[in-house]
């Protein structure tokens, strides 16, 4: 059953060896020439599966991968039956929000410690289940050692908070608290980078 059709992939609810699973299928795009279309779908499917495996190894809750099919450009993964953080945020008390955001910050630090950047950190891509925040959709992720990429990763979440949850201005501060407690590099360096990125916005005064 198709449950979501994004810009590049279909998310299908399916069963696999008796389990409820999510199948992510990268769909062909008619506007791209086939050579480029196949190259992108292949690269992205492979990369996403690798990132998810490595993220899990780094201690970040992500769906378990059951199968990767490079001919059909699909990834079959665990169905995380929880609540999306986006819808959850307004329902919580400030203390609970702080707790969740600290967890998110810790998760991001674990990703960065494993040299992974997620590339699309928004509250739509986070699910709370059994007291753990799962990260999903590594479709824009990449392996990187760069401070720049890590800064961009966090900056994106900061922007996502301000557009999706403008009524709670402290969310990002809580995230950074959690981040600092786990990040193995110099967290101050990352904070400086975020400030730099904010100033870099086009036509920013």
């Amino acid at each position, binding site marked *: 059953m198709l449950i979501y059709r*994004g*810009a*590049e992939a279909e998310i299908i609810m399916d069963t696999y060896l008796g389990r409820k699973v999510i199948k992510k299928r990268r769909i062909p*795009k*008619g*506007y*791209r*020439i086939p*050579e*480029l279309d196949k*190259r*992108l779908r292949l690269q992205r499917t492979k990369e996403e599966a690798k990132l998810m495996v490595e993220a899990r190894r780094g201690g970040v809750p992500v769906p378990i991968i059951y199968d990767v099919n490079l001919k059909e450009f699909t990834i079959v993964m665990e169905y995380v039956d929880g609540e999306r953080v986006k819808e959850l945020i307004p329902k919580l008390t400030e203390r609970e929000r702080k707790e969740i955001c600290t967890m998110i910050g810790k998760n991001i630090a674990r990703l960065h410690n494993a040299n992974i950047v997620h*590339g*699309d950190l928004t509250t739509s891509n986070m699910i709370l289940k059994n007291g753990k925040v799962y990260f999903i959709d590594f479709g*824009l992720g990449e392996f990187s050692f760069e401070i720049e990429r890590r800064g*961009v990763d966090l900056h*994106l979440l900061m922007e996502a908070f301000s557009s999706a949850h403008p009524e709670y201005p402290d969310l990002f501060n809580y995230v950074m608290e959690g981040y600092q407690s786990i990040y193995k590099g110099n967290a101050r360096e990352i904070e400086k980078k975020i400030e730099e990125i904010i100033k870099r916005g*086009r*036509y*920013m*005064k």
Partner: protein
Amino acid sequence: MIALGIEGTAHTIGVGIVEDLNDKCRVLANVIKMYKPAEGGIHPRDAANHHATHLPHLVTKAIESAKIDEREIDVIAFSKGPGMGPCLRTAATAARTLALYLEKPLVGVNHCVAHLEIGRGTTGCEDPVLLYVSGGNTQIIAFAKGKYRVFGETLDIGIGNCLDKLGRYLNLPFPSGPIIEKLAKRGKKYLDLPYTIKGMDVAFSGLLTSAQKYYEKGERIEDICYSVQETAFSALTEVTERAMAHVGKEEVLLGGGVASNERLREMIKKMAEERGAKFFVPEKSLCIDNGAMIAWTGLLMYRCGITTKVEDSFIDQRFRTDDVIVKWRE
């Protein structure tokens, strides 16, 4: 109501006259003159001199071809920014002079917003996601929470700038876009090029460097142009689609000089079809930088009571799209 608009943000100086007819834009006149550097890119001072030389004649020509009396003009609009300082100042000076001479109100207009408004005014789209592609600007703009907001943009150079730089490297004249388009039609072999997308943003400098390397290796120019277009335009189409999915809009509008490219139009159209959305593109003379879009946006602003006093009519080289209060869409 009739508005006269002066555009002068970069290489083009333009004067347009428009009239509102049942809330749609009727273009009465739209004349432009484009500065072409003898070599290299735009020299801001040379461009401004060019604009100053041609402006008086363009104003006269616009009023003549609109077949109106200059006293019928209700408001004078000018491109306040973003753009190159000397060019902006030249256009603004002319607009102030006209406003004082004709004793008409003055309105400063955001150039990027004007590219979107002219699409809404002339193509029948109502609430589009705009892919604005020109030399200096590559942005994805849509209306959200009372303002036009930039959802995606280039992280380094504009797509038009990328094509012009490639053109210079391949010894093609400026502007190179149309020539690259022709050459690309004869391309057969796709050469792998970097495809850089970060969320809803794009980047083209890596692609440009790789394309130059292919040229040094002796690949056919036609194949290079073909591969650059296919790769860069696919990336633009993809981020536009992402933005549409993100903001939940069903219309896509193309604007800017690069919107003249048929292959880009074809891709955006195809993308729109596949997701059941509608595709719009203004006629070519309204896609490129022009005075009519400034006049039309100025008219919309003036109609809801916005004017700029002559003493406050500064230009703003870094005028942000989301700094504009969009009163006319409230």
